[in-house]
């Protein structure tokens, strides 16, 4: 009995001794990352809408507007303007038609292209003149009390790829022990690519604030997974949103470090 108590006391003593001699300490830290854009002149932000193309399964314009607004409400000090997403493809089509109203192709130019016919980023280029239309954005700005306006392009396209892939496989050896081994095998995978360009416009003048931020993310799944397009879209947006937010507001990244002496 006395021996057991002595043993316990000894182990406690050793623990205390070890703690006393510790020469390093793990400490939680929060790293503030300053916003890339100076948006101090704005009290409001209006996620106006996007030119979108790619798969018809996800409305890139509406989903992106909704998601960015909800994130900004939670993680930014700017007041988020709540209004319908602008149908930018229609607006861009109409404004380009106005430019050539007297020309022979005016009636065709007035027709808004169907999403199905817009597959790539290149397909959106003929409509991107809308971002430089300062008069249009100034009018929008006046309507919503001179906010910071966020617009741009969203391209969400299906993608497939085949080739050698390394994955981990559990194996049981002759002695019945489990272990994980890397295995290389040929796989056909399918998934999606999300490419987004964010353009920031000063609602007071209608002018672009910066050249824009471009992000591209890709996700591939096993052929049998049948991941819905919308799920994949949200997974890809999870990667993009922190970087989008860091453009507009100071973000705090939590982690831990080791102090030493």
């Amino acid at each position, binding site marked *: 009995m006395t021996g057991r108590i002595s043993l316990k006391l000894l182990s406690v003593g050793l623990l205390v001794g070890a703690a006393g001699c510790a020469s390093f*300490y793990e400490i939680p830290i929060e790293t*503030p990352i300053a916003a890339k854009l100076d948006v101090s002149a704005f009290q409001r932000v209006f996620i106006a809408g996007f030119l979108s193309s790619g798969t018809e399964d996800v409305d890139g314009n509406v989903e992106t507007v909704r998601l960015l607004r909800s994130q900004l409400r939670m993680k930014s000090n700017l007041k988020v303007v709540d209004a319908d997403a602008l149908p930018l493809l229609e607006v861009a089509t109409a404004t380009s038609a106005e430019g050539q109203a007297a020309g022979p192709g005016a009636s065709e130019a007035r027709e808004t292209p169907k999403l199905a016919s817009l597959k790539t980023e290149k397909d959106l280029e003929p409509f991107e003149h809308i971002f430089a239309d300062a008069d249009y954005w100034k009018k929008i700005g006046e309507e919503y009390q001179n906010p910071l306006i966020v617009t741009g392009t969203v391209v969400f396209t299906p993608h497939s790829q085949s080739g050698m892939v390394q994955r981990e496989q559990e194996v049981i050896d002759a002695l019945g022990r489990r272990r994980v081994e890397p295995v290389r095998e040929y796989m056909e995978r399918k998934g999606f690519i999300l490419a987004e360009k964010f353009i920031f416009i000063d609602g007071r003048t209608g002018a672009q604030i910066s050249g824009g931020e471009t992000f591209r993310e890709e996700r591939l799944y096993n052929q049998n997974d049948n991941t819905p397009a919308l799920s994949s879209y949200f997974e890809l947006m999870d990667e993009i949103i922190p970087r989008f937010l860091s453009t507009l507001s100071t973000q705090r990244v939590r982690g831990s470090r080791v*102090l030493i*002496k």
Partner: protein
Amino acid sequence: MRVHMLTAVLLLGVLSGAAYADARADAKAQVEFGISVAQKGLWKEAIYRWERATQIDPNYAAAFNDLAIAYEHEGLLEKAGAAYERALKLEPNNPMVRQNFELFKEIHDRTNQSQTP
């Protein structure tokens, strides 16, 4: 004459060794105090202490490591990077400094990441 020279050199060695030990002890005291205040969330005071430690003993890797962490916490990322690099230059094989620096770089790279298609 030779004996005198040897004695002088030895004395100088002993004295500089003692001065070095004194500097390290002073710097260590600053580092330890810095750690105790950082653990209470007083990061500005910790920065002051660790900056003092690096001035007292510019070869003390731990002081630069801790200072880098404090700079990181305050969002002074350029200064943090420089302090980590100094710590690693002094102790290139210190696994804790290396791990801290890797984590710092990961955040730094991620926030600067802006891909083009």
